[in-house]
């Protein structure tokens, strides 16, 4: 049975110095507004929960800031650091290779859809690790054709 490991909300995200999605509100719902022409990234920090053993997937919930059906592509990457790892947190990152997925927006503006992205590259995550999860809209992906912002409402990290 699948288990929800994390529910990553817009307000718990943190951001790089440049090219990050705007933290906004739509109908009193917090959203991360991912632009269609600028690659924007945000992060969440979590601890890998005890009992974590299975494969993970990220389910990105979003809706489009315009009516119409077109594709939106996202990249999710995982950085898992075990105490004692030789990663200089002062100056380096160690994200694993990105995992990508895409789905079409729904025709009606405001209707939410989701894309499930299998985290094949999960940086050998293990229980107790310090973990960062990055989310970016892959505007260069040929499947990313939606000509408006994608409003991300939630990201679920699910264990298969």
């Amino acid at each position, binding site marked *: 049975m699948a288990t929800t490991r994390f529910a990553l909300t817009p307000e718990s995200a943190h951001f790089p110095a440049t090219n990050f999605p705007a933290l906004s509100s739509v109908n009193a719902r917090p959203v991360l507004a991912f*632009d*269609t*022409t*600028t690659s924007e990234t945000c992060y969440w920090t979590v601890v890998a929960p005890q009992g974590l053993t299975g494969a993970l997937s990220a389910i990105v919930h979003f809706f*489009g*800031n*315009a*009516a*119409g*059906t*077109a594709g939106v592509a996202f990249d999710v990457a995982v950085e898992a650091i075990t105490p004692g790892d030789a990663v200089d947190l002062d100056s380096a990152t160690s994200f694993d290779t990105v995992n990508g997925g895409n789905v079409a*927006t729904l025709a009606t*503006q405001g209707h939410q859809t989701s894309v499930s992205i299998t985290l094949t590259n999960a940086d050998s995550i293990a229980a107790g690790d310090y973990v960062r999860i990055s989310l970016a809209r892959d505007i260069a992906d040929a499947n*990313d*054709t*939606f*000509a*408006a*912002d994608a409003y991300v409402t939630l990201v679920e990290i699910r264990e298969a």
Partner: protein
Amino acid sequence: MAVLTTQQRGEIHAYLCRRFGYGVVTKADVQAVVNATDQWQDDNAAAFNTALPEPGKSALSLTQKTIIFCYVALKRAGIEV
């Protein structure tokens, strides 16, 4: 006056997609419309200026005439300015 550069056309595309959003066509479709609009304006700039009456044609600056052009176009499309 030459057409805009690819960079400038891209900046227009980026702004319009973020500001307004176009869900019924793709990003590439919007860029194509931006490019064609720029090309049409370049092709027809002289004809537009020729159509203007004096003394406005000679006395008004390029900026002033461009703003008039845009305001008339917006009003014709029912967009309040």
